[in-house]
């Protein structure tokens, strides 16, 4: 699938007259794995929410697969920040994963056997099948993140928007999630991830968007992830200057092997 997965034109979002996104443009080609980086308050979460129609833009336009989001809901899966929901809610892991399929079911139709099976498959992909019946408050941070990931997989979309999927996750699980994201991309899906660790950007991602209220740069990592752009994004206080030591790429871990270490 070629073409543009997400097209953002002149997007401005303001909270009470304070712009959090100023005139942002983005053409995200289909089939790439993109990091969205920028300092706190740069509008990374707001950008994702604007693409999903969750915040009303003051100006500008968002197109998903060339159409307004409303008509392309099924094409987009969403992983919100882990802290955005109440993990004491009385429900099970499998139940949460099945929520990813509610959109396909539409109003009134109940999830049934097919959805349970698809939910279990999604849980197997993140090595959480053994936790299916577990109450969600009993999960660790990394496990919560994997449940959210499984829910997005269950949405069976072609575009995945993820808000800090590595937050509160140990190194082993992070690697396993990265492998999963790269698999999604190699299957032709588009994945955009809000990411904080600049060191791992070149290793994990092939595209990058540098954002600080305005779009600083976007493109392939080789083009856009330059010291100059990073300084422009972080205002000189670059927390990371790209090292010259060529570390050997770490061996990728699989979740099914990693899960025991949680």
């Amino acid at each position, binding site marked *: 699938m070629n073409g543009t997965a997400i097209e953002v034109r002149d997007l401005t979002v303001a909270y009470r007259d304070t712009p959090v996104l100023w005139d942002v443009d983005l053409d995200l080609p289909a089939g790439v794995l993109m990091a969205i980086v920028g300092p706190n308050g740069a509008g990374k979460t707001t950008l994702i929410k604007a693409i999903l129609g969750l915040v009303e833009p003051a100006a500008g336009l968002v197109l998903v697969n060339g159409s307004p989001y409303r008509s392309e*809901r099924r094409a*987009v899966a969403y992983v919100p920040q882990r802290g955005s929901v109440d993990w004491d809610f009385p429900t099970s892991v499998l139940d949460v994963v099945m929520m990813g399929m509610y959109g396909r079911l539409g109003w009134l139709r109940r999830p049934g056997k097919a959805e349970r099976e698809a939910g279990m498959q999604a849980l197997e992909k993140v090595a959480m099948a053994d936790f299916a019946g577990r109450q969600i408050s009993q999960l660790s941070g990394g496990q919560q993140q994997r449940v959210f990931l499984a829910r997005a997989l269950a949405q069976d979309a072609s575009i995945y928007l993820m808000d800090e999927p590595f937050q509160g996750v140990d190194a082993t699980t992070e690697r396993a999630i990265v492998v999963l994201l790269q698999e999604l991309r190699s299957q032709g899906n588009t994945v955009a991830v809000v990411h904080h660790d600049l060191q791992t950007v070149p290793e994990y991602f092939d595209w990058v968007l540098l954002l600080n209220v305005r779009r600083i740069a976007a493109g392939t990592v080789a083009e856009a992830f330059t010291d100059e752009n990073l300084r422009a994004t972080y205002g000189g206080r670059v927390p990371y200057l790209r090292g010259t030591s060529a570390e050997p790429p770490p061996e990728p871990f699989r979740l099914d092997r990693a899960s025991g270490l949680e």
Partner: protein
Amino acid sequence: MPQLEIQIIAVVTALACALPGAFLVLRRVSMLSDAISHAILPGIVLAFFLTEDLNSPLLILGAAVTGVITAGLIEALNRTGRVREDAAIGLVFPVLFSIGVILIARYAGGVHLDIDAVLLGELAFAPFDRIVIGGRDLGPKALWVMGSVLLVNTAFITTLYKELKLSTFDPPLAAALGFSPVLLHYLLMGAVSVTAVGAFDAVGSILVVALVVGPPATAYLLTDSLARLLLLSAAIGTLAALVGYWASHLADASIAGSMATVVGIFFFLAYLFAPQQGVIAAIRRARGHRRRFAQQMLLVHLLHHEDTPEASRECQPEHLQEHLRWNEEIAGIAIKSSLRDRLVVSRGGLLHLTSEGREIAREAMVA
């Protein structure tokens, strides 16, 4: 006969309140039920001015609309970012309630719209207000009203169960998937309003709040599944209604008052005795951890000194206190419970590990 009817009305009311109440509690907006049950008064009064009939179904409609408006005003005030939700609730409903009170005092003084009845209700009188059509007695009006409300609420929650669940747990995802959380919020507020207006006549608005918030909050401590929480809320509400009724009978007290008290007592009991989340369960768990840890320390200590020359000294019960610097109590607990669980045996004044005890000690050291 009136006794039975009062109990049926009370149970039906408790059921009708518990269902939307479960979602209010989970959404952490329980106090909206308080706001709505008071703020519907002007709606009732205005509808009464229009129809001049206290039995008109338009009164319920007027109240329901006022309830939804109340929720809307609170939301609007909240969204300004200048006040928090609790303050917004406290600002909106007293104003609306007072408007209702003023309207009654000014224009409806001679009518039976009694403020005491609004707040406290009087279940004991409910069986006397009956629906009679063509000379046939169809039963108490309150039963018909609350029966209909229960039916509406049950239909609402069973048909939109999946949507309510998603929009309560994760509103952004609900919105992204195309289920309008705003619409669902106002449908829920409409259900609460209809419930409150149906119930206030019979049981009063204070008991409405108790029945909307109490049973689901109690059930929340007892289960970790939403479906079971709904069923359990209904069961707790029913039990509270019946126990409350008979308590009031014995004590010769207000029925609504004793029902609300029983709801509170049930919550307190669950708070203390809930198997997982109760206070006592938490204390027992903490004690269990401490005892297991003390046991492990004892076993590991014995393992270290097993078959060594100093065993005769190190493995004396009296010596443990001194050597491990345990106080008498913990040492006593560790030794007694280990003897009981047959992890150690006492021979010739010395403690010896059993094979199970040895295994546990080894495991403890690995972990």
